[in-house]
């Protein structure tokens, strides 16, 4: 049986593609149902084709407000976590100091902790401090849990950097500031960018920690969560589809730029 033999030989490829299909399927469903005109409140069954939701993505009360809030939080969380995380990463890779082990475990622990545990414990802190839950408590929480991921991403890049490049810059009479801005930063940039991108995605998408510490403030994931009970507007699928398309475009564009740089460097 040649067909069976072909299947056996390509078993890994077939299984891998099946997994890929499993991963993409919900995105396809979200995309298809963004063109649906649902009957009633719930957008779970296909009715008929319509472009209404795409023409008016903000047509649902509070949706775009929550979206812009999430974008603002994600932006500042990215700025904060990237700045703090990059500094920690440089300290860990470039310097030998006491308490290095303790610092390493303090960085590792937030990633090895179920999110509910962190969310709940942070809430007890805020309650004990009498803090008002809202934008600031969410931002503080997001910077906290994004920090470790930024450190890991930047560390990986800085570790593979050749310190002799910086020594060479100093030998050529570059000052410390000049060396850092002209040599160190450009080399570390891809790691910092990866960390920042990760922080943005994590913060923008976070639900559990936000749900505990937001009070009555509604971020986009919380809006989606609430709408699951009340009835999901088609506009949610529109936003989901747009996010997917933008993300794919950004990542592909980034790779294109990287490839061109690489081929330029090769010439």
């Amino acid at each position, binding site marked *: 049986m040649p067909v069976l033999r072909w299947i056996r030989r390509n078993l890994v490829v077939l299984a891998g593609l099946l997994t890929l299909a499993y991963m993409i399927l919900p995105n396809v469903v979200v995309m298809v149902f963004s063109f649906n005109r649902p009957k009633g409140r719930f957008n779970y069954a296909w009715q008929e084709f319509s472009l209404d939701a795409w023409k008016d993505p903000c047509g649902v009360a509070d949706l775009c407000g929550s979206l812009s809030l999430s974008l603002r939080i994600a932006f500042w969380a990215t700025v904060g976590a990237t700045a703090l995380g990059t*500094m920690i990463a440089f300290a860990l890779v470039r310097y030998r*100091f006491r308490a290095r082990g303790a610092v390493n475990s303090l960085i590792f622990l937030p990633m090895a902790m*179920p999110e*509910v545990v962190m969310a709940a414990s*942070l809430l007890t802190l805020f309650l004990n401090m009498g803090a008002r839950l809202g934008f600031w408590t969410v931002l503080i929480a997001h910077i906290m849990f994004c920090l470790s991921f930024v450190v890991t991403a930047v560390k990986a890049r800085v570790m593979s950097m050749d310190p002799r490049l910086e020594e060479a810059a100093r030998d050529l009479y570059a000052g410390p500031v000049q060396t850092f801005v002209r040599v160190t930063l450009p080399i570390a940039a891809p790691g910092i960018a990866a960390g920042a991108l990760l922080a943005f995605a994590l913060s923008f998408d976070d639900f559990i920690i936000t749900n505990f510490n937001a009070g009555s403030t509604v971020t986009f994931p919380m809006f989606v*969560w609430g709408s699951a009970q009340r009835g999901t507007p088609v506009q949610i*699928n529109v936003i*989901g589809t747009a996010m997917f398309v933008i993300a794919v475009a950004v990542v592909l564009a980034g790779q294109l730029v990287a490839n061109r740089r690489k081929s330029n460097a090769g010439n």
Partner: protein
Amino acid sequence: MSVTKAPAAEAVVRKPSTRRRLVPYWLLLPGILWLLVFFALPMVYQASTSVQTGSLEKGFEVTWHFRTYWDALTDYYPQFVRSLLYAGTATLLCLLLGYPLAYLIAFKAGRWRNLVLVLVVAPFFTSFLIRTLAWKTILADGGAVVDALNTLHVLDVTAWLGWTENNRVLATPMAVVCGLTYNFLPFMILPLYTSLERIDGRLHEAAGDLYATPATTFRKVTLPLSMPGVVSGTLLTFIPASGDYVNAELLGSTDTKMVGSVIQAQFLRVLDYPTAAALSFILMAVVLLVVTVYIRRSGTEDLV
């Protein structure tokens, strides 16, 4: 370095060098302070909350009431067992599903590699709540998936195993595990891919030259070399899955509640802070225990 320098120069060098020795601490200070205040300190507060008694009206007080732990465990052990069971099953499924895809990207994708990687990462950027809600549509009663499973009599088997009920998938353990598996697959695939990609392709050729069958090559060469990826992938999947309550709430029913749902309800709706704090401490302890034992057993302590 200063050893090789002349003694006279050393005295001049010493002052900036003490300042330089402080540089790492200045670099660490803001970030570490942030983690200490908003990660470590909250744990202490939670520990103290878990041994308090009282009510919201009268206020809570530390009374070293350890019974809360015992009560929380006896009241909610089904949710605990379920969480570990669901998270464990989802982790195993992630490994079985993710390994071939990671292998495909690392060794077989060729010029498609970047595209496949993008397709693995891209769902990260669409809100995971929206994607989880999409599973509600996919697994809906009378939908294509349920119809197909019914026609093939798969649902009879899964119902007999207790995974599904009444010829439906939604609101059953199977739906929750399906959602968990789906949501955490990228966390399994990426570490697997990273460790597979590091393997020198010539090792496979060498194994083939030594008359190893593809299966033997995989068992003796590829799998052992990918163990760091397997370990970090399973941890990155199991830990978040064990505390997750989004999948259980959106795709499950009251019979499939996980411990995360209980913690959330106690904290945000019932406002029984001591019980909620005790529960989340037990969850943390169980997860840390499982992780420690697992890392010891897999013998990759230095690789994680």
